[in-house]
């Protein structure tokens, strides 16, 4: 009988830290024996994560730590040629040589124009992104910034709308009290994404307690496979279905939460013929109609008897209508039949789900939590990438917000909640603090939107207006509601730069952990943009496709198990515990010290800032960004190291007794969340939009600029009434391209790095779908295709990928699915190389394939399929 040989143990200890395999940042503890990390477990006592469990991605972190393919020393490219599949002919250099060259070039570029510096980071570095690199970027310019593959495949619409409506980065059902949740291409609880582990735990509990989950999704996999009911849908048509549901609820059933709409939205605001708010002549504030006094009043006039939600009124000779009445009328065109035609969801199903949702909302019901009587709306509709990754992203996300808000199910018990954006802080210090407030036109603002610290400004409200400067390679000056810029990697990059009169382009790129050649769009398109950048520095764990093809200097990074940081997770409004789960704050600490010459890239950035003479400036930015208490502020000229900064941050947040040593021992701290924080909506005087009045002015101004510059932008979606617009994939006429192809998040993978761990590779082989192309068995039969066939997919413009076919019935009959971000070709990632299919090869990236409002890129394609072996 084999067993542990305890006598051989010189050291056997558990170290608390956080997981770094996705941006969920679950609390973990790692067992170290004789200096070797041997086991990862979830942190049972923390609410940040699954309370003791971890997913397979998290467990496989040990094979990131011990991968012999990890980079160990700085490398320099000796082959002047750059491009796909080019051998860089790496040469080892010293850190000093590397830093000298990087600092020299960095200094030159930021002195000339910081925007010519292109800084990109991966979402998996999100814990560090907010806390560390935001202040560093602010100090350096800020440069043009971009979040790797996760950027353009991120929630361009979802995050903006979640910000405007929920004060948060994203949305999730309040699992604990929710009875009926609808998912539109979302995976909350399905093992990936925001607060992954936390959501797995809470959704699993909800399922056993009888919560009904309905999933609109092209494929029955992960969250949709756990749903009570799966409804196959054509990609990009979610918005039509959601608006049809709103129509059924409001117009057919006559159900809506009047009180919520009157007090918590812009529903009663009067709108004139031009679509804009009718404003008070003196204050400029929006007017509402007080039906008790039969006169118009400013929306927050305390004398208002009742708010009119509908009707026609005349103010100073001008006709006007309350927003809600306009919305109610507007959505009539979204009949279940109309939505059915585009989405393939039967009209009767749309009616039934809408009715079930509206009834389950139990408008008027209340619940008492910790002595507070609050509205109980146990229904929630959420969407993420699947629903919003299309050319109608902004409005589709707006439609979900409308569906939740008509039944008053937003940030109240049981409804759709954000990641808690209201925090009164740790008892005793009042930090970290984040508050929802009332801003322009009474709309909600949040002072530190998204992360706890270090966000560059306020929340998404009020949205910025376009202001053409012509100096921004990302074109953020023109497209004010653009989230991540496609133009940093698009096929029309040069054309756009010419049109805005930009002389020269990006001069230097710093890429941290992102592998954009593999993870955005067609690699040939992206390769052209990378070739234009004269100097590229990559900090990585491996020699990736981006590094091999394009990096001039490749720096060996540390992985999360070798790093120490006072940040773990991206904070409130992003990854800290949501709804009524207690607050938790974790640190990251090294389980083993970095081997070889690997260096934490945050330390490298500090060093670079030092070398370009901006150390004091960085400390000043950090003092402010971390809201350091006065006694912990770094003084001008004072030189502290990063761990000293970590010590100051945690002491500032949690008091001197909770210093870095305390956190190293305990790993995290928790404290109770108050009802006023969890369900802040009930305690806050502010409103959220059901009508995008702001888009009128932004659209007009953008149109004015783009017309002048000769940029052909379709501004039809800059409309205040939440609408559904078909995408380019719906306009393909050639019957040969009869299938919709999409990619989906596989439970075994995050981004592209997870493909390199042999454990996950073994499991991906064990899974019938992960490495294969999936399609419906009946569609395959019609086409004479069989399980295991080698097939080629081709888009309308001739982009091709190939892979093995796996047939199933839990997929829309017109759909073809590809998992994760696979298909590596770099020599530096031998386990990942050649596994799975790189879906992104099929994607176009240019102005025409983006949502003109959020600039979310279209991530579905029309394809034809043929057998090649």
């Amino acid at each position: 009988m084999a067993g542990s040989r305890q006598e051989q143990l010189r050291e056997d200890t558990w170290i608390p830290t956080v997981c770094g395999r996705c941006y969920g940042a679950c609390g973990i503890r790692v067992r170290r024996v004789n200096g070797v990390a041997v086991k990862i477990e979830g942190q049972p006592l923390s609410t940040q994560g699954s309370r003791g469990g971890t997913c397979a991605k998290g467990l496989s972190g040990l094979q990131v730590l011990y991968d012999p393919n990890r980079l160990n020393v700085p490398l320099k490219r000796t082959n002047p040629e750059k491009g796909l599949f080019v051998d860089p002919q790496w040469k080892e250099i010293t850190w000093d040589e590397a830093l000298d060259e990087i600092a020299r070039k960095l200094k030159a570029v930021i002195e000339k124009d910081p925007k010519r510096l292109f800084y990109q980071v991966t979402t998996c570095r999100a814990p560090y992104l907010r806390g560390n690199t935001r202040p560093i970027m602010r100090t350096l310019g800020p440069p043009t910034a971009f979040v790797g593959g996760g950027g353009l495949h991120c929630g361009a619409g979802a995050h903006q709308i979640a910000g405007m409506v929920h004060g948060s980065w994203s949305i999730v059902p309040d699992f604990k009290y929710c009875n009926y949740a609808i998912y539109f291409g979302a995976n909350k609880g399905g093992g990936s994404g925001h607060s992954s582990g936390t959501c797995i735990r809470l959704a699993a509990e909800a399922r056993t307690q009888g919560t009904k989950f309905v999933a609109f999704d092209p494929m029955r996999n992960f969250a949709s496979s756990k749903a009570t009911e799966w409804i196959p849908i054509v990609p990009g048509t979610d918005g039509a279905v959601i608006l049809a549901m709103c129509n059924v609820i409001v117009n057919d059933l006559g159900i809506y939460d009047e009180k919520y709409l009157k007090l918590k939205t812009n529903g009663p605001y009067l709108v004139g013929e031009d679509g804009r708010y009718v404003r008070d002549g003196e204050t400029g504030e929006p007017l509402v109609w007080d039906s008790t006094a039969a006169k118009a009043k400013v929306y927050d006039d305390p004398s208002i008897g009742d708010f009119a939600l509908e009707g026609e009124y005349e103010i100073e000779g001008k006709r006007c209508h309350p927003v809600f009445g306009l919305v109610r009328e507007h959505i009539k065109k979204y009949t279940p039949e109309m939505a059915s035609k585009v989405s393939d969801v039967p009209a009767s199903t749309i009616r039934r789900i809408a009715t079930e949702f509206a009834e389950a909302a139990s408008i008027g019901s209340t619940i008492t939590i910790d002595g507070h009587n609050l509205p109980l709306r146990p229904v929630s509709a959420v969407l993420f990438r699947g629903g919003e990754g299309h050319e109608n992203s902004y409005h589709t996300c707006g439609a979900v917000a409308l569906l939740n808000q008509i039944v008053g199910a937003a940030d109240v018990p049981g409804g759709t909640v954000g990641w808690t954006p209201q925090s009164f802080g740790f008892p005793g210090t009042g930090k970290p603090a984040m508050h929802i407030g009332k801003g322009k036109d009474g709309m909600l603002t949040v002072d530190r939107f998204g992360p706890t610290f270090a966000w560059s400004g306020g929340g998404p409200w009020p949205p910025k207006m376009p202001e053409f400067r012509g100096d921004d390679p990302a074109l953020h000056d023109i497209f004010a509601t653009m989230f991540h810029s496609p133009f940093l990697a698009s096929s029309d990059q040069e054309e756009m730069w010419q049109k805005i009169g930009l002389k020269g382009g990006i001069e230097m790129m710093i890429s941290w952990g992102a592998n954009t050649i593999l993870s955005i769009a067609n690699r040939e398109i992206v390769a052209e943009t990378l070739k234009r950048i004269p100097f590229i520095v990559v900090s990585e764990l491996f020699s990736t496709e981006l590094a091999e093809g394009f990096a001039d200097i490749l720096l060996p990074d540390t992985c999360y198990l070798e790093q120490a940081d006072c940040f773990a997770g991206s904070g409130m409004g992003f990854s800290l515990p949501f709804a009524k789960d207690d607050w938790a704050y974790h640190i990251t600490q090294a389980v083993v010290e970095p081997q070889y010459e690997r260096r934490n890239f945050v330390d490298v950035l500090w060093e670079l800032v030092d070398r370009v003479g901006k150390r004091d400036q960085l400390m000043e930015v950090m003092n402010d960004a971390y809201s350091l208490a006065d006694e912990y502020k770094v003084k001008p000229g004072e030189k502290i190291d990063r761990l000293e900064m970590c010590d100051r941050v945690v002491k500032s947040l949690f008091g001197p007794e909770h210093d870095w040593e305390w956190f190293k021992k305990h790993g995290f701290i928790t404290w109770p969340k108050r009802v006023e924080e969890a369900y802040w909506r009930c305690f806050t005087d502010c409103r959220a939009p059901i009508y995008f009045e702001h888009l009128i002015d932004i659209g007009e101004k953008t149109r004015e600029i783009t017309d002048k510059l000769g940029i052909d932008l379709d501004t039809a979606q800059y409309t205040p009434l939440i609408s559904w617009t078909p995408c380019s994939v719906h306009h393909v006429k050639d019957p040969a391209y009869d299938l919709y192809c999409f990619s989906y998040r596989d439970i075994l993978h995050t981004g592209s790095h997870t493909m390199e761990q042999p454990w996950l590779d073994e499991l991906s082989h064990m899974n019938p779908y992960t490495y294969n192309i999936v399609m419906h068995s009946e569609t395959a039969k019609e086409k004479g295709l069989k399980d295991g066939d080698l097939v080629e997919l081709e888009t309308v413009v001739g982009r091709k990928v190939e892979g093995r076919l796996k047939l199933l019935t839990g997929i829309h009959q017109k759909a073809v699915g590809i998992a994760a971000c696979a298909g590596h070709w770099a020599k530096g990632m031998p386990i990942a190389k050649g596994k799975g299919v790189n879906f992104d090869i099929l994607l176009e990236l240019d102005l025409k394939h983006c949502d003109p409002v959020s600039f979310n890129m279209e991530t579905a394609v029309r394809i034809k399929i043929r057998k090649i072996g």
Partner: protein
Amino acid sequence: MPRWGMVINLQKCVGCYACVLACKQEHFLPPGIFWGRVVVGETGQRAAVTKAAYPVLCNHCEDAACVKVCPTGATVQREDGIVTVDYDKCAGCRYCVLACPYQQRTYYADSKKEYFPGQGLTPLEKIGKELYPLQEGSVLKCNFCIERIDSGLKKGLVPGVDREATPACVIACPAKARYFGDLNDANSEVTLLIKEKKASQFHPEFGTDPSVYYILR
């Protein structure tokens, strides 16, 4: 005497494979060897189709087929129901591999296999061979984390209640879909769950009376 058993709630399980990897880590299992797996496929037709993810492991059957066929006495059943393999006695004949109706046994053919082929053993693999030696040429399978149970019991801990005394796959599950405990205790969580949720054994027709039960969705 307890009879250790497990209940897996398929309504909770998301098919994330954490149980599979937690087991591999706990026992330093080499490439290609799995003591637990997740079997993924589909059941039902058309709109009623459901993706099925079944986590499987050794069932520690009351009437274990593997015990009966083992010619050397390497595979035995303890009084607490756990079926174990004594590698020193195992001749590698693999009768048990064929006899197990649940296909839960693997012959360990090659101890030289590396997780990064041709690149040597990682520090993790090296220490694993010291801390948890497995013998090439013998048959391997799940042992219900016998070491955790036995050392836990010695410390007065309760398997299924205290993490330290509970199988690795159970505590690793982020959905908390797995439960462990004494099937002979009428008041244990597993016994109550089996009763309340009508949990069932896979393929009861095999007639081996497994100690692993499933709550179907």
